[in-house]
């Protein structure tokens, strides 16, 4: 469905600008504390181009904090985060904004603007950054991504009339409408019913086939993660305790990892009960 995203979007730019071979996201000895609470403790991690990396870990370990470092909403106390070659905490504002224009992010609850309708929300990045597109081209693109997230014809719907799953899909449509090179997801499955959740996973999976897009998926839900991720990194109490391909990590003997995987895969009824996706919970 989404495999030809880049070439199918009307008014697409040619897929240049991705010439450099360096990893698009590099964490180098990042430490971050809020007061006495150390959230990231010497985290070094690279995200490979064109791959889907899942960052997993129990709630409250700092997964969202990690994501906010990528987009430059938070800055490390020490160490550095480079995104598309730019040091996000030391670069000038304009350079950070230039990097952000090449990113898309799906927020936990969509973060849609209440004063705009669905279509205007999705068109927002185009309105702001793509004066080169005509109104018709923008509209075509929005209609196209609406179809991709399986919400065709919802352009004029008010955001207040959307369900939780629909909000996420609209948020996803907004994240990808301007052809980002990196797409970030914060808990794409949390708070969703199993069917919508699977649909979102399928959507991520099919977009993954689009060459060159780097995905970062934050999740405490291991089941969905295994299906979509090429690589898995696990955060636990501020430290990176595992980092490898999905197959490696799933087979790892690391005790904490085993406990996390085991609880999620084998004993779901003792897992995080706020997650409606757990198998065994009707």
């Amino acid at each position: 469905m989404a495999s030809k995203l880049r070439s199918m979007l009307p008014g697409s730019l040619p897929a240049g600008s991705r010439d450099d071979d360096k990893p698009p996201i590099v964490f180098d000895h990042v430490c971050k504390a809020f007061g006495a609470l150390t959230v990231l403790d010497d985290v070094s991690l690279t995200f490979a181009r064109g791959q889907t990396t899942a960052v997993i870990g129990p709630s409250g370990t700092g997964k969202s904090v990690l994501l906010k470092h990528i987009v430059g909403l938070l800055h490390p106390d020490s160490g550095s985060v480079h995104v598309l070659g730019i040091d996000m905490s030391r670069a000038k504002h304009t350079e950070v904004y230039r990097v952000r224009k090449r990113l898309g992010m799906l927020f936990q609850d969509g973060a849609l603007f209440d004063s705009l309708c669905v279509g205007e929300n999705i068109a927002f990045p185009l309105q702001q950054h793509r004066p080169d597109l005509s109104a018709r081209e923008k509209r075509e693109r929005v209609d196209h991504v609406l179809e991709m997230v399986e919400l065709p014809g919802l352009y004029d719907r008010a955001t207040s009339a959307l369900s939780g799953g629909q909000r996420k899909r609209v948020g996803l449509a907004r994240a990808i409408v301007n052809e980002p090179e990196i797409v970030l997801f914060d808990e794409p499955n949390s708070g969703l019913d199993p069917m919508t959740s699977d649909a979102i996973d399928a959507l991520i999976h099919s977009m993954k086939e689009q060459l060159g897009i780097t995905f970062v998926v934050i999740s405490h839900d291991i089941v969905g993660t295994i299906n979509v991720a090429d690589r898995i990194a696990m955060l636990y109490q501020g430290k990176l305790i595992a980092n490898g391909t999905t197959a490696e990590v799933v087979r790892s003997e690391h005790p904490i990892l085993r406990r996390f995987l085991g609880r999620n895969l084998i004993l779901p009824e003792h897992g995080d009960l706020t997650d409606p996706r757990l198998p065994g919970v009707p």
Partner: protein
Amino acid sequence: MIRWLGGFAGFVVDWFAACALKAPPPGRCMEEAYRIGVRSLPVLLTISIFVGTNLCLQGYNAFVPLGGQRLVGMFVALAGIRELAPIIAAAMVASKAGTEMASQIAVMKTREQIDALEVMAVNPLWWLVTPRLYGIMLVMPALTVISIFTTVTASYFTATIQLGLNGAVFLEFARNATSGFDLMTGVIKGFLFGIVICFVSTYCGFASKKGPEGVGQATNAAVVISSVVCVSLNYLVSQVLYG
């Protein structure tokens, strides 16, 4: 208190650094001006009318026993145009438009919409503060003038119809006591109060704690702080111009 002031000063400096020279988001200033104006107008008219009536009654009580019927018009004009109308306009705009600014922005912060703006490479100060600031700068002077005329007109009718004073004398003394300069003062005050209300209210929104409690606190702080600052600023401006 000190921390609040520091944060507020930083916020205003940030706005000037990032937005003062940048064209506002197209179309949104007029939208905000219209909203601020229309929302605040009904309550402003109502309050202005009754401030006018009471100003006249108290002027009458004060001056008529001393034989100074004619001074009522002068008193109403001086107090109404120079002091009360601008302050009333500021208080009403703070309580309608200011609280709305604070709560809207606090809700956006709670729902990660401010973060979303940043991530989409749109400066939230530019997108959220600039249109409200230019909008309020546009309408506050107008609202102040409207409040001035409503207050004085209400006083006039109270004086002539209820108290049986001579309307022509009332107007003559009102006109002689004041000048275009006083009207100008009112407009300048309105302009300044508008800027204060906008910066204070939007800052309260941006600085709010996330969650419903934070939204309530931000809304409350916006109206309290902007009213206090406007009343104090009013004293300063009057001191400079008339002291």
